[in-house]
């Protein structure tokens, strides 16, 4: 049961990350390749405040949300002038830049590579409560994303993706929408980062490498671009599938590489056979 709660919590965390990534990649067409950077910022802010300064975890989560949103805005701003493929490359570079920052400047508990020893309040204390709270937050994010994409703002986002010139002709600056949605996605990813820290009890820089960003791409790629249900579907399917690999009876050192290889195969398969994923409404056009 403990383990099921843990899995449920993990799924909820990644659903939030996938929803946020889908807002920018699927709906707005901004090829974000470094979402793990914002996940890491959120995790480090929440865990750092809580472990080192004793800040209440609820407040720490709120701080994670706000700081990640601000960091996302600050890092997007210089990148607004570049488009297409180079944008993807720059965000991928950001992931490496942030990894070195976490690695060299990130706070750590003495004698370890990362942070542990979170003091969690009642809502996050037991594994059952933690699952319930995290799942509720994921549901809230889901509803928020659905509201966003169904609103005039959502229509504007799709216009940024498909017809930026038409948007500009209406006197609306596509870059304002990009900035807005990128910050919202960064904030949500940061919130997920804080929750991730609470789920794992321990964070270190290796959780936020390019591999994590690629994982996000796999999740929404499989589930479907520009689809909120797709974000949920991809995460649930892949985490459950991954979990089932453990029961194959393979030696434990092979499980990680096997998962990685499967993700690689999935990416290739998607790009060849179904670029919109299972229930997506948009595909990797370029």
């Amino acid at each position, binding site marked *: 049961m403990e383990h099921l709660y843990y899995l449920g919590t993990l799924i909820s965390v990644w659903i939030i990350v996938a929803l946020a990534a889908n807002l920018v990649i699927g709906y707005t067409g901004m090829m974000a390749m470094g979402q793990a950077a914002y996940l890491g910022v959120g995790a480090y802010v929440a865990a750092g405040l809580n472990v080192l300064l004793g800040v209440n975890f609820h407040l720490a989560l709120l701080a994670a949300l706000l700081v990640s949103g601000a960091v996302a805005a600050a890092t997007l701003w*210089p990148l607004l002038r570049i488009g297409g493929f180079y944008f993807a490359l720059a965000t991928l570079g950001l992931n490496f830049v942030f990894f070195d920052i976490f690695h060299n400047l990130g706070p750590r508990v003495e004698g370890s590579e990362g942070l542990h020893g979170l003091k969690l309040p009642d809502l996050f204390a037991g594994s059952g409560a933690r699952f319930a709270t995290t799942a509720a937050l994921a549901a809230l994010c889901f509803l928020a994303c659905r509201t966003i994409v169904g609103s005039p703002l959502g229509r504007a986002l799709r216009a940024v993706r498909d017809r930026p010139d038409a948007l500009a002709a209406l006197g609306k600056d596509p870059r304002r929408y990009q900035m807005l949605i990128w910050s919202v996605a960064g904030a949500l990813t940061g919130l997920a980062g804080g929750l991730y820290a609470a789920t794992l009890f321990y964070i270190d820089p290796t959780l936020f490498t*390019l591999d994590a960003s690629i994982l996000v791409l796999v999740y929404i790629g499989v589930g479907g671009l520009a689809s909120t249900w797709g974000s949920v579907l991809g995460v649930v399917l892949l985490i459950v599938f991954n979990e089932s690999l453990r029961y194959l009876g393979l030696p434990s050192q092979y499980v990680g590489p096997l998962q990685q290889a499967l993700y690689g195969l999935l990416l290739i398969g998607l790009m060849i056979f179904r670029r919109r994923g299972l229930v997506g409404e948009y595909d990797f*056009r370029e």
Partner: protein
Amino acid sequence: MLNLLQVFSTGLGLAGYYALVAVGFALIFATLRIFHVAHGTVFMTAGYAFFGLHRLAGLHIALAAACALAIAALVGLLIDKIIYGPVLKRGGGMFSVFIASLGVSLIFESGFLVWSKGVVSVARAELLDIFIVGDVVLRRFDFFILAIVALAYGALYLWLHRTSTGLAIRGLTDNSELSAIVGVEVAKTRNAIFLVASSLAGLAGVLTAYDTGMTPASGVQTLFIGVVAVILGGTRNILLGAIVGAAALGMLTAFAGYFFPEWISFSIFAMMIILIIFRPQGLLG
């Protein structure tokens, strides 16, 4: 001051590897608009093949190196045929190919991880001799690398400027549609590009396995250094751009490694982002 000279010579050695990887990447990127992340995989495959054939199967070192080069060339060609070809045929573009390429790189990386569990190295004493000039310690092997780079670039120059395939490649760099219209056999040229670029990456892989050793992470790492070198040098003139970019990156990594080793990847990628923002066509573009 003398320390700086030492760092400089280290940088030159590194630049040699980067130059071999970067020029192949640039060749593929400039002519076919394929962002070939798995170029790093090809580099790594050659290193592991060299190790396996020489150390484990006991093949003569030169023979093992030659086989590793052939394997690298073949792997590169097959990646294009089996993966990129179908992606492009089904309407995928540059970004889709990039994602598929990441997939290839993930698969190979995990395979090597299972097989080797870490670093493999073929180092032998003969070529790793050092000699001392003034206060600077030089390695014979670094000169060997630079000689190989010079030979490879010379051969590439002749290939690009004295053969019909080379003419076709330069045509593709300038205007691929127009070249197809005037009768460049794009498919055939494409195969040649992948074979040549991959064997150059293989050459770098063999040398790296011999020198510092190969780890499952080496592929992506070296590839991105090559990418930054190519962005820095630009693709207007493939050979010149790659060698200038690689020399600069060799110096950057050597100096960063000497003064602030924990910030190497930060320096490389921060530089990449700055270049993309301000000068995506490269310094020489």
